[in-house]
């Protein structure tokens, strides 16, 4: 029975799309129920897959129409769910479920909601399909549907010119990316006459890396770089994230760029299995480091809430790519853990942005201010997300970033190559800059003084807060129990990445695999110990202290009589303006971090010119990246 779960999970989402389209215009609540049912069942089905795949290490293979391979030659379309796919599948279904619940109330102000939900479900179904599929061309089709749905959702609010412009740019760059992937698929098919990933992996394992294979490999890497918004091709992402509704931006940063990263991992580790070459590792780590740095420095210069978050998504994807590029056990663990954490805290932050947009109508950092008093829960949740993304200890960001640092530095010790120390230093500095930009948002949006026009902003309805609470709780849990998360979720996925032979054996039959893998299927040993860092011990410490001091604070500090609340017109409680009458003056948005911007003036001006908004330059960047990757592959990868 478990063989059928993956295909049902995908079909349920697509079915949900069509049924909600059919029944949608009649009544709002019926459509919501259908959507809730569809996303709920797909989540449950994926969770049911958790036990067999993750615990018992079983890999599920499912042939469409039961076209099993004939005489060791795959002819049908296969679905293969190994630990890596299920890891990303879980991320996708959880994010989609929470995004659906959030958008029930969030989209209620917009018209044409039935169209929204159809495309929303298409996006969800296509990403889940992409993650579960074991067929090369099927991956291309799913990626294409994902890009399509993403463009549709970006242009959803078509009364605003920005969303149309963002959608058009995303479509142009996205279709170039898809065409590159398709071209790669075509060349691969011309070479191996089969489309099944497992079989291609097997054939590739023996075959010498001929130039044609390198050409296809370079095209695929270029295509997936566009999908994962890696730096040279990232310019379209901030426009799309900022223009799309927040529940969709949450999906964007949660699953769309994760799909790109999954494609990259599947390609580089399993199919082409070329990650033991130092030159390949250098390529990925180099791309990841640039993505990290440019993403966060651009975020510092933003003055729109969602654009800032979008640039952070790009920089966090840089983290994930750098960690995965190390291709050591520690690096992979750090990378996957950070991908999971990124989906959690970035989803939370985008939902907070949506909540701010829902109650105030604007996300411009220079106009907002002092919302903490009007929206206490959203402010609290935002703080959780901000601390999580900047890696403050009790939250999950700290654990995964810490793994990334240790991974990069251990890599530098192994290969005795100082370049990786430079990567560790850049990673740490980027983490501090992330903290800086979120301090900027906290001060500009939630604290400080409330402008006149937002006097009547009030807290968002409960149905929008529930997903935020769930995500915040997950952030905390993933931060406090890292060893549990690693053992159950990430260790199997890392082992799946490292053991490509296992992947082939399940799909194409055991004897076929042994014939191919003469030296036996190498199951790597998981030598990664948490380096003696027993998190639970010092977390208990932190907890005890917290309780001890919370008591002191609760008893009203040290002199209960003296905490005096703020009556409204008593001058005693006015903000100190060195004597002047306290008028509205809120330090926010662009007037923060003057020192930094002044010193890095040259850099910021150059970066501003690079993101100049002309589609042609974006397309040029994508094509030149692919060309450079191709050149690099031909010259250096031996």
């Amino acid at each position: 029975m478990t063989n059928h779960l993956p295909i049902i999970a995908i079909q349920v989402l697509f079915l949900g799309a069509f049924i909600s389209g059919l029944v949608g215009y009649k009544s709002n609540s019926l459509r919501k129920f259908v959507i809730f049912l569809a996303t709920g069942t797909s989540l449950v089905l994926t969770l049911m897959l958790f036990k067999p795949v993750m615990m018992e290490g079983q890999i599920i293979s499912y042939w469409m129409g039961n076209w099993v391979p004939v005489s060791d030659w795959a002819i049908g379309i296969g679905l293969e769910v190994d630990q890596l796919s299920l890891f990303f599948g879980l991320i996708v279904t959880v994010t989609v479920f929470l995004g659906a619940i959030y958008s029930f109330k969030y989209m209620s102000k917009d018209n044409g909601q039935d169209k929204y939900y159809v495309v929303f479900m298409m996006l969800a179904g296509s990403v889940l399909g992409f993650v579960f599929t074991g067929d090369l061309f099927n991956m291309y089709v799913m990626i294409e549907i994902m890009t399509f749905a993403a463009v549709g959702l970006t242009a959803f609010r078509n009364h605003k010119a920005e969303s149309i412009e963002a959608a058009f740019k995303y479509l142009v760059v996205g279709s170039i990316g898809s065409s590159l992937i398709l071209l790669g698929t075509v060349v691969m098919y011309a070479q191996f006459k089969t489309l099944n990933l497992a079989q291609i992996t097997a054939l590739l394992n023996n075959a010498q890396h001929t130039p044609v294979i390198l050409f296809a490999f370079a095209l695929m890497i270029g295509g997936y770089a566009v999908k994962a918004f890696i730096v040279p091709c990232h310019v379209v992402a901030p426009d799309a994230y900022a223009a799309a509704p927040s529940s969709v931006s949450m999906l964007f940063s949660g699953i769309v760029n994760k799909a790109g990263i999954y494609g990259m991992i599947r390609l580089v580790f399993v199919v082409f299995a070329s990650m033991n070459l130092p030159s390949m590792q250098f390529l990925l780590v180099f791309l990841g480091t640039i993505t990290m740095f440019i993403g966060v420095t651009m975020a510092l210069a933003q003055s729109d809430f969602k654009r800032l978050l979008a640039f952070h998504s790009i920089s966090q994807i840089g983290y994930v790519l750098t960690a995965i590029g190390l291709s050591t056990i520690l690096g992979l663990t750090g990378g996957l853990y950070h991908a999971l954490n990124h989906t959690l805290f970035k989803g939370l932050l985008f939902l907070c942005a949506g909540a701010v947009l829902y109650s105030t109508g604007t996300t411009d950092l220079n106009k907002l201010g002092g919302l903490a008093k009007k929206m206490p829960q959203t402010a609290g949740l935002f703080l959780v997300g901000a601390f999580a993304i900047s890696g403050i200890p009790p939250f999950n960001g700290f654990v995964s970033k810490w793994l990334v640092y240790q991974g990069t530095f251990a890599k530098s010790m192994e290969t005795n190559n100082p370049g990786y120390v430079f990567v560790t230093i850049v990673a740490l500095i980027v983490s501090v800059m992330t903290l800086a930009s979120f301090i900027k948002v906290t001060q500009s949006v939630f604290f400080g003084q409330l402008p006149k026009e937002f006097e009547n902003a009030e807290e968002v309805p409960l149905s929008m807060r529930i997903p935020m609470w769930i995500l915040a709780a997950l952030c905390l849990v993933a931060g406090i129990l890292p060893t549990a998360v690693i053992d159950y979720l990430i260790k199997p996925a890392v082992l799946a990445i490292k053991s490509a032979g296992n992947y082939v054996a399940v799909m194409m039959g055991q004897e076929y695999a042994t014939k191919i893998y003469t030296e036996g299927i190498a199951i790597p040993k998981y030598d990664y110990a948490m380096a003696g860092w027993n998190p639970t011990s010092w977390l208990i410490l932190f907890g005890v202290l917290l309780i001890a001091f919370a008591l002191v604070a609760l008893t009203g500090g040290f002199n209960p009589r003296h905490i005096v609340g703020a009556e409204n017109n008593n001058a005693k409680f006015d903000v100190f303006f060195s004597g002047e009458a306290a008028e509205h003056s809120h330090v926010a948005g662009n007037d923060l971090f003057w020192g930094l911007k002044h010193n890095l003036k040259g850099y910021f001006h150059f970066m501003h010119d690079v993101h100049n908004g002309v589609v042609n330059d974006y397309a040029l960047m994508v094509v030149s990246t692919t060309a450079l990757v191709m050149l690099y592959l031909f010259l250096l990868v031996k």
Partner: protein
Amino acid sequence: MFKKLIEKGIEKSPWLLHINTGSCNGCDIELVSVITPRYDAERMGFKLAGTPRHADIVVVSGPITSQSKERLVRTLAQVPDPKVVVSIGSCPRSCNVFHGSYSVEGPLDRYCDVDVSIAGCPPKPEAIIDGLAKAVEILKTKRRGK
């Protein structure tokens, strides 16, 4: 026991906030000179605080000009209790040579009860130190009085 410790704390570390309501800066220089190495008020714990929220002793200098009246009242309100107001020099006491002028709004005690006054135009730093010592005693009585 804790109360006694806090009292000792208040006695040993009074922080000053200096408000200049239009003074000729004679008293201001004398006040700042109290913190220089020669007179070193810091050995008694005095320190100039930047904001009214951090202040215990508010030192006012200058006749209250009409411009600074409103700001003086607002800043005085923002100082947390227990607080002591000290007028330095004869201007706040009676706007000495400027009394009766159209732009001077009268002595300080029209706006708050002045606890300690230090006469002299400008008072000698030693006199200021005496005055501040007197202010600290009043601060202690105010604290105990609460």
